[in-house]
């Protein structure tokens, strides 16, 4: 039976695709906008401290008169950058190790397993800090620190999945057809672990943002005058009790929204990729 291509958008699949594209576009817009906000836009104006949200300043102003909307967006874009970079690198590492270790087997697999256990047994906040500092701090140090500690759980999950797939008849059959390990990894295994990868990316994203916040707070992460959303929030905490709610609510809500959007993108990509999940 031939599949007819319909020109109109309808059905669950189309809506899923639309959702993913919209959120992704939104995140991209925030990132670009944020990156383009310069120092000059965030000028200090002591005449305008602690202004409530108004037409001029939709998110209000902070304790030195800077516009909160611009601060929030800039902070978000920085957080997005950090989150994405950390996720991508962690996942790349987790995927490669998670697929190749069980496939190659033997001492390679044992070694990787041991490494995972080792890294997971140390409180990772500490390790993130130590590694970041050792790598010179700043954005680069932070990313290396997060990646070095977050690849592990993904590797574990993917390795478990690969071990199972390895036992399935069709990979063994493929071997009997003369296919190489690389072929099997690429054609049989990789497509099956994509759902886990997507979940992994989505989960690491908020983690990375939080780690950045705590590191910068302690003085080791990003320079304090270029804050990502985590710092903006923690600084705002000081003023909540004196009634300056907009300093925390808007950035907080923004952070939540971004996390939800990333999570939604993750789930929807999973739905699109997996044929069985798209019947509901």
């Amino acid at each position, binding site marked *: 039976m031939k*599949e007819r291509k*319909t020109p109109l958008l309808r059905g669950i699949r189309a809506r899923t695709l639309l959702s993913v594209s919209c959120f992704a576009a939104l995140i991209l817009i925030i990132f670009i906008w944020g990156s383009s906000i310069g120092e000059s836009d965030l000028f200090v104006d002591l005449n305008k401290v602690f202004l409530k949200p108004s037409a001029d300043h939709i998110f209000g102003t902070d304790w030195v008169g800077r516009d909160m909307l611009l601060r929030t967006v800039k902070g978000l874009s920085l957080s997005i950058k950090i989150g994405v970079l950390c996720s991508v690198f962690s996942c790349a590492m987790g995927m490669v190790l998670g697929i190749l270790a069980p496939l190659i087997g033997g001492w390679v697999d044992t070694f990787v397993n041991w490494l995972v256990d080792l890294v997971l047994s140390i409180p990772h906040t500490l390790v993130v800090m130590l590694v970041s500092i050792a790598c010179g701090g700043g954005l680069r140090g932070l990313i290396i620190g997060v990646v070095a500690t977050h690849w592990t759980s993904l590797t574990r999950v993917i390795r478990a999945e690969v071990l199972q797939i390895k036992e399935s008849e069709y990979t063994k059959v493929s071997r009997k057809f003369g296919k190489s390990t690389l072929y099997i990894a690429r054609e049989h295994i990789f497509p099956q672990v994509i759902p886990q990868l997507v979940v992994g990316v989505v989960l690491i994203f908020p983690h990375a943002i939080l780690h950045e916040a705590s590191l910068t707070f302690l003085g080791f992460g990003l320079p304090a005058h270029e804050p990502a959303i985590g710092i903006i929030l923690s600084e705002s905490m000081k003023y909540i009790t004196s009634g300056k709610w907009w300093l925390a609510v808007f950035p907080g809500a923004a952070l939540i929204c971004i996390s939800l959007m990333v999570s939604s993108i993750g789930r929807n990509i999973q739905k699109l990729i997996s*044929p069985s999940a798209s019947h509901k």
Partner: protein
Amino acid sequence: MKKEPLLSIRNYGVSFTRYEAGLKSRNLQVISSLDIDVHEGEIVAIVGSSGSGKSLLADGIFGILPYNAVLSGEIYYDGKLLTQQDKEALRGREMSLIPQSVNYLDPLKKVGKQVELSVRDKDKKKRRKVVEDLFARYNLSPEVYDYHPFQLSGGMARRVLLTTALAAGSRLIVADEPTPGLDEVALKEVLKDFRVLVDSGCSILMITHDINAAVTIADRVAIFYAGMTLEIASSEDFRGDGQALRHPYSKALHAAIPANGFRATPGFQPYSDNLPEGCVFCDRCDRKTERCLKERPEFRELRGGKVRCHHAT
């Protein structure tokens, strides 16, 4: 006067709405029209190949079809039209299902304990005895009681599944593929035990793809193809040269049996989403006419059985 059948299925249909890759949704009529009666003390077999929709029949009788299934037609038990609540009340008690594979068992529990769940007796020792006796009757050694499902070989698993239904003492037993993988000795045992069950008042509806098993075990056979019953015949009709068979597909099945010549009729069963307008067997039939292409035959009585064919005599 003919007694009311214990189980009566009339013009039963099951369809699903499915979404698939791309932007399409389609309505799959998996079972279009199933008609079968099981009288008390009878063994009736429904024979259909995989993809004919037969597995859904068991789910339909017990009320465990998926959420997106749409039902049509009726199922009567003891003369009463079954609602979903009726099915839930009867299943596991008056009606039991012997499922297809050991995947239906809890992989973490010992099989003996799982079979015990079907026995309705407060006394733990009595329950265990019932199960042990059943196991012994099916040539399962005593240690099988403590096995886990994964430890059972194919044939052993079948026999354990049989005992789950027997332990409940039901009047109607639906057996979903009870015979593949059984060697001749075990097969004859199953036959014997089915007969013993029937002689003590049970009725059995057997769903299978194996025409040989059906003809050996059952009294009557319903041929199920592309979602509908094409013929209901007695097992006798399938023995010998098969001349008594009514439908061309039944004759094709008969001819394909290894002992009868192993003759293959070309073609295959049409899909639920691609059923022809007229007779579903049309494209493989050497007796088709214009009428067959356009008009789907009615299920009619013929020589003591039933058939869905314009040309059957």
